[in-house]
């Protein structure tokens, strides 16, 4: 057996090991911390690519931890979609980390940077675990790691808003995991299984005998993942948490963390519940309508925000709605759009939060009204903001258009014209709040006496890379689309 066989487990474990070493390393040689974490990211990226190569050669496969086959042990499943998520997580995790290297010096006390790196490694590692695991209870454990780590990277900043936001987030996310654990209990009670595939096989028989149990479990699962991923009525924690956090944390929370919960919900809905069960209970419809409400209300709330980061946070509620819409429409093309939007939104929202971080650091301004003429003093950064804003609106040449296009096409194919209108309407709403900022930033003169503080080149470089990526995935989406089509075909059997 070669080492390559163990890559699925190693991707997760090297992040954990790196996090365990971090406090000691920080005490001993604090300058080595950042390179170590960078190295781990690169290693994980290489492993994910190797997994992809192996998938192309041999198709989906499983990894049995401790050599115990599923009913007895825990299993990791490796298929195209999961590897796609891991690639996004690790790749964009690396990108945001490069930005964080310089940004953190301004936002955190020096002595907690080591802990921040440890938490960051745990966050990325646990999210990779959530993407790969094929076991209900294992998913719960990783969810809990991810939940605490994502609260901690908010509360690590010295401000009382962060503490409150983080507490609110922690309580709601604890409620979410509590509901999920209850759902596991109810499912285990009637099926006796914990593995996704085996539950799926046992569910039809159980559904006949104990319909209520499964109904309640389904409701609890939607509440749990809806809370974690900020599905519309359960989003109350998100604006405060994402707006008050340090900029790299905002980027990783908005870009990656809420997506992985959406992906887990997708996994459970499509791989745990059999298709017959999904038709009997209108889960997809519920998710679809909540997503629609989220898209509209998120955009409307974003329009009235004065704080730049808060506006971006509300916009995240709208954008995660697109991903859920893809799941809810239950149609391959729409799913394709939703999955492409996971990548796109992670890129553009990550970049926009980085831009916000740079603006706050350079000028100390964070109110939308104060951004007049800022394009004259921070040209490159504001061009990146323009690209991100255009992508949010869905202007041709940016990634946002492509994912919305596929979503709309999927809605048409499913004969749901209403949702096409929702998508168009939300694009208009996005334009209402992104365009004025862009226009004011470039056309108005910059007022302000205080000099603009210099910004690290690394941070601007990370933003530029993000901008190029957004344009690249807008102009040349074909490889990812082809990949996702094949992946979804293999998974859904369309």
């Amino acid at each position, binding site marked *: 057996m070669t080492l390559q066989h163990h890559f699925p487990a190693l991707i997760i474990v090297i992040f954990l090991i790196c996090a365990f070493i971090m406090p000691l390393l920080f005490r001993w040689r604090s300058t080595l911390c950042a390179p170590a974490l960078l190295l781990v990211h690169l290693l994980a990226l290489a492993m994910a690519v190797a997994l992809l190569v192996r998938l192309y050669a041999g198709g989906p496969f499983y990894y049995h931890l401790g050599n115990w086959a599923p009913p007895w042990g825990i299993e990791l499943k490796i298929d195209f979609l999961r590897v796609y998520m891991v690639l996004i997580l690790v790749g964009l995790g690396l990108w945001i980390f490069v930005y964080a290297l310089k940004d953190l010096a301004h936002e955190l006390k020096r002595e907690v940077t080591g*802990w921040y790196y440890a938490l960051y490694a745990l966050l990325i590692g646990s999210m990779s675990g959530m993407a790969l695991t094929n076991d209900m209870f294992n998913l719960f454990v990783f969810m809990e790691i991810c939940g605490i780590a994502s609260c901690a990277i908010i509360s690590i900043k010295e401000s009382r808003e962060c503490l409150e936001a983080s507490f609110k987030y922690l309580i709601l996310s604890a409620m979410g995991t509590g509901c999920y654990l209850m759902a596991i209990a109810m499912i285990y009670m009637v099926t006796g299984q914990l593995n996704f595939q085996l539950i799926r096989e046992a569910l039809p028989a159980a559904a006949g005998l104990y319909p209520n149990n499964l109904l309640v479990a389904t409701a609890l699962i939607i509440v749990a993942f809806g809370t974690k991923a900020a599905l519309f009525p359960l989003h109350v924690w998100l604006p405060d948490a994402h707006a008050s956090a340090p900029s790299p944390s905002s980027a990783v929370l908005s870009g990656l963390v809420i997506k992985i919960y959406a992906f887990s919900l997708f996994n459970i809905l499509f791989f745990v519940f059999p298709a017959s069960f999904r038709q009997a209970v209108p889960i997809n419809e519920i998710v679809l309508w909540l997503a629609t409400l989220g898209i509209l209300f998120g955009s409307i709330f974003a329009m009235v925000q004065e704080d730049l980061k808060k506006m971006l946070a509300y916009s995240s509620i709208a954008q995660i709605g697109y991903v859920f819409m893809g799941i809810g429409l239950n149609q391959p093309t729409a799913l394709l759009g939703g999955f492409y939007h996971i990548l796109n939104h992670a890129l553009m929202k990550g970049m926009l939060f980085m831009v916000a971080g740079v603006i706050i650091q350079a000028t100390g301004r964070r109110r939308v009204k104060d951004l007049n003429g800022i394009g004259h003093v921070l040209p490159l950064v504001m061009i990146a903001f323009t690209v991100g804003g255009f992508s949010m609106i869905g202007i041709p040449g940016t990634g946002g258009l492509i994912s919305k296009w596929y979503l709309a096409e999927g809605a048409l194919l499913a004969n749901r014209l209403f949702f096409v209108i929702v998508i168009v309407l939300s694009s208009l709403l996005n334009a209402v709040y992104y365009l004025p900022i862009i226009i004011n930033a470039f056309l108005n003169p910059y007022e302000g006496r205080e000099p603009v503080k210099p910004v690290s080149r690394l941070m601007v470089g990370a933003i530029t890379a993000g901008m190029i990526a957004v344009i690249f995935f807008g102009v040349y989406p074909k490889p990812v689309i082809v990949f996702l089509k094949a992946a979804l075909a293999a998974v859904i059997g369309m």
Partner: protein
Amino acid sequence: MPNQVLMIVILAAVLLLAAARFFPRLQLRTVLTLALLAVIGYFLLITVAEMPLFGKAVNPAHNEISLRYLEQGVAETGVINTVSGIITDYRAFDTLGEATVLFVAIAAVIATLKSH
């Protein structure tokens, strides 16, 4: 069904009375929350009534998985405490995750307390 309706009415009444007794200044929001919880509680109750009966050996949860743990666990893991065998061998990855949860709690606590 009438039984269930009666039950929910009684439950809601008791909850509301208790609430009125303990919170003299009862607000609309509280009442609404209580009503919502009563509905949730009702659904959970009918679920409980439908669940596999407690303590029966024929319940679906007691299937071939637990049998294998009990019958072959000693031979396969070499320990006689089956629960220990499950958490550190069959499902050892969960326990690694659990140790990690402890670690992340420490990291979060220290980071929060040190930075403020």
